[in-house]
């Protein structure tokens, strides 16, 4: 049979494109609809956060971390202040640790809601599930507003605790949210989880095997979707995670559907963690007194937490001065992009978008 001679076409997807979640650029070579090659190009949102940190003192850097993963700034704050505390041996009061865990788990829910909503948007669902996700995310942002007055760039945490104690009305709103949320998740699942089109689009698409995931350093929900039971909250319990019970949801095969479903189950687990924290929390101080300029002893340290997108770590070197000598961020979004080419090659245009969407990158964190 004679075949028509065809040529592969190279298309620039981005940096201005509705589905690259920011200024991400992909140079994709298509053979018809099929992807034969792909090269991610990033750096369009590079603001030099790590270099800027070298000329600020340790409290000022908290605001810089807000702007990295700007949909999960609470987790960034926690990862940073934990590193500073480890570097300069600051003890954190128990109540502050509980408040930190509650706010970080709320942030995880908010971040996963965004990931789920935008994945559905990438699937072409005309923003309806996205708006439903955003509606609930707004309630979490309202809680954050009660905590610290900000909604997105929170800067709530300080080395040695949190910036202020929770206001009274926070707990009522939190309890309402906790009791409503499982019902809301059921509603969202009834719209998405059993939808025939969602299943047809996502199952088996963008497979990432467990060996491949470990080899490429992937962490977070993407790693767990590839059936690797690895969560820093269990493997290396920080704050008060050893006092609460929760499961680590894992996927069965590591396809796009698993990545979506693991996130959904993680939201339920986060609710469980928060309600246990509400039961256990006791009144007390929320911040250890620290000097105005923190001067950690000379040395270096690395500490990491399980952020919404994976292992979020800070490596800091102190020369004894008021600002770090070096501040390196292990950004999960950036490292989770490592297996992108292997995952996408061989799939079609529409799959590219949803695979990228299921990785859930935030360009502020990828480029820093």
């Amino acid at each position, binding site marked *: 049979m004679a075949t028509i001679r065809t040529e592969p*076409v190279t*298309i620039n997807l981005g940096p201005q*494109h*509705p*589905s690259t979640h920011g200024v991400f650029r992909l140079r994709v070579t*298509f053979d018809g*609809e099929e992807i034969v090659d792909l090269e991610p190009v990033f750096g369009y949102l590079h603001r030099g956060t790590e270099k800027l940190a070298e000329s600020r003192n340790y409290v000022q850097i908290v605001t810089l971390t807000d702007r990295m993963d700007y949909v999960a700034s609470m987790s960034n704050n926690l990862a940073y202040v934990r590193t500073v505390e480890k570097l300069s041996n600051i003890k954190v009061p128990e109540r502050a640790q509980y408040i930190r865990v509650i706010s970080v788990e709320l942030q995880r829910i908010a971040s996963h809601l965004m990931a789920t909503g935008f994945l*559905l*948007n*990438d*699937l*072409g*669902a*005309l*923003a*309806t599930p996205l*708006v*439903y996700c955003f*509606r609930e995310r707004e309630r979490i942002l309202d809680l954050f507003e009660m905590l610290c007055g900000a909604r997105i760039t929170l800067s709530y945490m300080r080395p040695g605790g949190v910036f202020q104690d929770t206001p009274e009305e926070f707990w009522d709103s939190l309890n309402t949210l906790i009791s409503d949320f499982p019902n809301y998740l059921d509603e969202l699942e009834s*719209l998405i989880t059993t*939808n*025939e*089109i*969602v*299943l*047809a*689009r996502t*199952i088996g698409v963008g497979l990432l095997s*467990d*060996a491949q995931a*470990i080899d490429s350093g992937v962490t977070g929900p993407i790693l767990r979707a*590839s*059936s*690797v*039971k*690895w*969560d820093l909250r*269990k*493997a290396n319990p920080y704050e008060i995670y050893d006092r609460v*019970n929760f499961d*680590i949801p*894992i*996927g*069965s*095969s590591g396809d796009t*559907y*698993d990545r979506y479903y693991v996130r959904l189950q993680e939201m339920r687990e986060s609710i469980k963690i928060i309600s246990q924290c509400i039961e256990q929390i006791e009144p007390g101080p929320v911040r250890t007194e620290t000097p105005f300029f923190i001067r950690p002893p000379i040395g270096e340290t690395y500490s990491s937490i399980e952020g919404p997108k994976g292992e979020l770590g800070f490596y800091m070197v102190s020369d004894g001065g008021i600002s770090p000598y070096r501040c390196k961020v292990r950004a999960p979004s950036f490292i989770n992009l490592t297996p992108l080419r292997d995952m996408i090659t061989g799939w*079609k*245009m*529409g*799959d*590219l*978008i949803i695979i990228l969407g299921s990785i859930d990158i935030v360009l502020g964190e990828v480029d820093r």
Partner: protein
Amino acid sequence: MNPTPALFISFKSLQENFVTLIELIGFGESFGWLATLLAGISISFLIINVMVVATAFYTWFERRMIARFQVRRGPNRNGPFGMLQPFADVLKLIMKEDTIPDEADKPVFTLAPIALLAPTLMIMIVIPFGTFLNKEAFLSNLNIGILFIVGVTSVNSIAIFMAGWGSRNKYAILGSMRGAAMLISYEIPMALGITSVLILSGSLAMTEIVRSQSVWFILVMPMGFFVFMAASTAEMSRTPFDQIEAESELGSGYNTEYSGIKFAVLFLAEFMAPIVTAAVVTTLFLGGSHGFDFLPGGIWFALKMFIVIFGLLWLRSTWPRLRIDQIMGFAWKTLFGLGLFNIFLVAVEFTLAREFNQVNNGSLTTEYMLIMAAVNWIITVAVILIMANVVGRKKYTRPEPTPSPLANMGLGEN
């Protein structure tokens, strides 16, 4: 066999009026062509204006409704309930710079919007709108009305390909390649759905099809309705078949390079399609202007159109999009088979009806149609159940997740 209905407005009556007018003024019979021309211009003027205004209100309605689905408010600033929003949008688009890319194929690029809009408008010519003021309203009682629709709608794929090819943009060409493949594929199930209607009605004229529906064809052959609806949703490339535009994938698909009034025309054609499709579906399957006597037929027609439009809108606001190969597979593997099966069913039943002398003036008797409806609904439900449980679900059973042995880190116990 049927008396010629008194026409509310039609090409023929207009032409006759113009002939009398020309004779009144004093021109001779040699100016007959002028009457034809004037009648044509008047009809075009009427269709274009009515449809453009209807589409404007439809876009407002769609935006408001989708906003409600999405717990938003939707446009509510311009005019009562934001009803003047579409006019403001059009005004903005007209005032925008009308750009043509340097490398574009200029004639093709310019003609594409017109080529997309014209066939959509032309379909309205043959739609019988029912009765207004005790007069039957249609523009032309073409005796091959439905064939005209099938023929005219297939121009769409050319127009979309023109837009993509003329733009010389990679996204646009990708969108229009998808469009060409998809629209041509879906014309076949659409034609199969129409064929089953023709078997029952025994005529190609739209008025005859309406008259033969003493029981609505959606009740008589639900499978044919589903096939036709799915195919026509794809024909106008709306969710879940909106591969041509695929906002999240291709930016904007075939109309990426368009701006200004050209984009407005493309947009108009795109949003006119649901109205036209609803009119065709109402005529073919929902009994056209049939209804209870307390309201005129025209109102019933509009109500049914509204319900169809709302259904399409509902789909659009909830469902994600299928992948291109899944869409093609759905056309060729599912709809094609269902359409053929439906024709087979209807043909067998029609032959049986002839055996039992149930055919009356080329159409079936009401009693026989009711029996057919009962039988066909049972068969349709059975087919859907078989497809859902045997073909569909099996693929989606997920294995129970087991932790990978590669990195368990002793986390199994808790």
